[in-house]
C-alpha cells in the first residue's frame, strides 16, 4: 500500500511505529552498563558509543529487511500471528519485572563488549522490528523516520519513557491494542488469503474479534469475576470453531450457509456449526471444575508444616 507523505495514513503508521518502538524497546542503557562495568574508564566511553551505534545500525537493517521479507507470500500471516502473541505477552503482568536480562556477565575486551551489546539488542529487537515492519505498510521511509524519532528517545531519554509509562500505564494498553490492530491488518493483507477474504467478507470481523480476544485476554480477564474466567478460553475457541467451518467449506467445497444448503448433509453440517460447540464447551467447563476441586482438595489434605 502506497502512503502519501504526511497524509492521515502516513502519520497514523508513523505514530504506530513510534508507539510500538517505545513499548517494546529493550533496556539498552542497562545492558551497556552491565557489559561495560568492568572495562577501564577510557574504554567505557568508546564501548558506549560503538555499542549504541551498532545497536541502532542492526535495528535499522533488521527493520528494512523485515519489510522485504513480509512481501513474500505467507510471511505476512506468520508475522500477524506472531504479533498477536507479542501483544498478549506485553499485557501479561510481570510480578518479577526487572529480574532477568540478557547480558549477565561483564565483558573483558572492547570487541567483546560491543559484540555483546549488538547481539543483545538484536535478540531483544526481533519482536520490535517485526511489529514496525508490519505497521510500515512496506514503506522504508516510514521505518527510517520511525527509528529516527524513537531510537534517540530510547537511548538518551529512557528515563523519560519510564516516567511516562509509570505515570500513564494506559500507554501499555494502547500499545497492546495497536499491536493487535497491526496484526489484524497484516493477516487480512496476506496475499495468499486476499481472495478468500474477498469471497468471505464476514470472516474479517470474526478474525478481528478473535485477534483482540486473544491479545487483550490478560487485560479483560483481570476484570472478569472468577466464574466468568472461562470466557477467556471459550470466546476465542468459539470464534476459531466458526472460522474453521468457513475454511472447511472452502477446502472441501461444501455449503455451510443454511439458506444455500442443498442436501441433508449440508443441513447437518450447518446444525453442527451452530450447536456442535455446546457439548465441547460443557466438557471444558466440567473438566475445569473437576481440576479446580481436585487442587482445592489437595491443598486441604496437605498437613500444615
Amino acid at each position, binding site marked *: 500500500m502506497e502512503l502519501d507523505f504526511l497524509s492521515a495514513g502516513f502519520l497514523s503508521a508513523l505514530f504506530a511505529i513510534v508507539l510500538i518502538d517505545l513499548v517494546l524497546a*529493550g533496556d539498552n542503557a542497562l545492558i551497556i552498563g552491565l557489559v561495560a562495568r568492568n572495562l577501564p574508564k577510557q574504554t567505557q566511553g568508546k564501548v558506549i558509543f560503538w555499542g549504541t551505534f551498532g545497536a541502532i545500525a542492526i535495528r535499522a537493517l533488521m527493520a528494512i529487511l523485515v519489510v522485504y521479507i513480509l512481501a513474500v507470500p505467507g510471511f505476512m500471516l506468520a508475522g500477524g500471528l506472531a504479533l498477536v502473541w507479542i501483544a498478549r505477552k506485553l499485557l501479561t503482568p510481570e510480578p518479577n*519485572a526487572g529480574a532477568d536480562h540478557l547480558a549477565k556477565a561483564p565483558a573483558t575486551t572492547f570487541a567483546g563488549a560491543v559484540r555483546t551489546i549488538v547481539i543483545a539488542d538484536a535478540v531483544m529487537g526481533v519482536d520490535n522490528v517485526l511489529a514496525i515492519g508490519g505497521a510500515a505498510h512496506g514503506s522504508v521511509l516510514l521505518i527510517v523516520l520511525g527509528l529516527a524519532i524513537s531510537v534517540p528517545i530510547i537511548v538518551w531519554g529512557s528515563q523519560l519513557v519510564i516516567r511516562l509509562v509509570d505515570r*500513564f500505564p494506559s500507554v501499555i494498553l494502547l500499545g497492546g491494542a495497536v499491536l493487535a490492530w497491526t496484526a489484524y491488518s497484516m493477516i487480512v493483507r496476506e496475499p495468499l488469503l486476499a481472495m478468500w477474504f474477498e469471497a468471505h467478507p464476514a470472516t*474479517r470481523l470474526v478474525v478481528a474479534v478473535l485477534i483482540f480476544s486473544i491479545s487483550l485476554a490478560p487485560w479483560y480477564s483481570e476484570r472478569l469475576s472468577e466464574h466468568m474466567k472461562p470466557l477467556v478460553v471459550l470466546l476465542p475457541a468459539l470464534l476459531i470453531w466458526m472460522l474453521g467451518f468457513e475454511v472447511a467449506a472452502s477446502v472441501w467445497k461444501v455449503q455451510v450457509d443454511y439458506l444455500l444448503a442443498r442436501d441433508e448433509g449440508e443441513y447437518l453440517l450447518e446444525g453442527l456449526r451452530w450447536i456442535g460447540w455446546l457439548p465441547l464447551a460443557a466438557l471444558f467447563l466440567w473438566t475445569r471444575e473437576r481440576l479446580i476441586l481436585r487442587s482445592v482438595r489437595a491443598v486441604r489434605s496437605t498437613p500444615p508444616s
Partner: protein
Amino acid sequence: MRLIDRSPRAANAVRTVSPSGELFVASIVICMILASFGDAVDPAWIGEAGLEFAIFDFGGEFSVLAMRHWHLLQLMLAGGVIAAGIMVLRIVAGAFFRPLEPAAPRDVEKVPINL
C-alpha cells in the same frame, strides 16, 4: 529485558491502569472492531435490509461503513471522543442520581422528621 519493565506500574499495566485511561483504550478498541465490522459487511446487504438510514449511514462520513477507511489516528480521536462522552454522561448521571439516594439514618445531612 524491556525498558518498561523498569517500572513496576507499567509492567503490571492491566492492574495499575486508571479507570479513565482504561476507558480511553477500551473506546479505541471498540472503534477498531467497528472499523473491521464496516470492512466485513457488504453495503448492498445493508441497503437490502433497509438499514442504511437507520444505523449505518447516520451522518455520512461518521457511519460504521465509512469507518473501514479510517486510519489509526482517526480511530484514536473517535475513541477519545467516545471516552470523554461516557465520562461526561457518568458525571451528569451521578449528579442527577446522588440526591435521590437516601442519607444514612445517623448522617449529619439527615433531616430529622418527627411525626
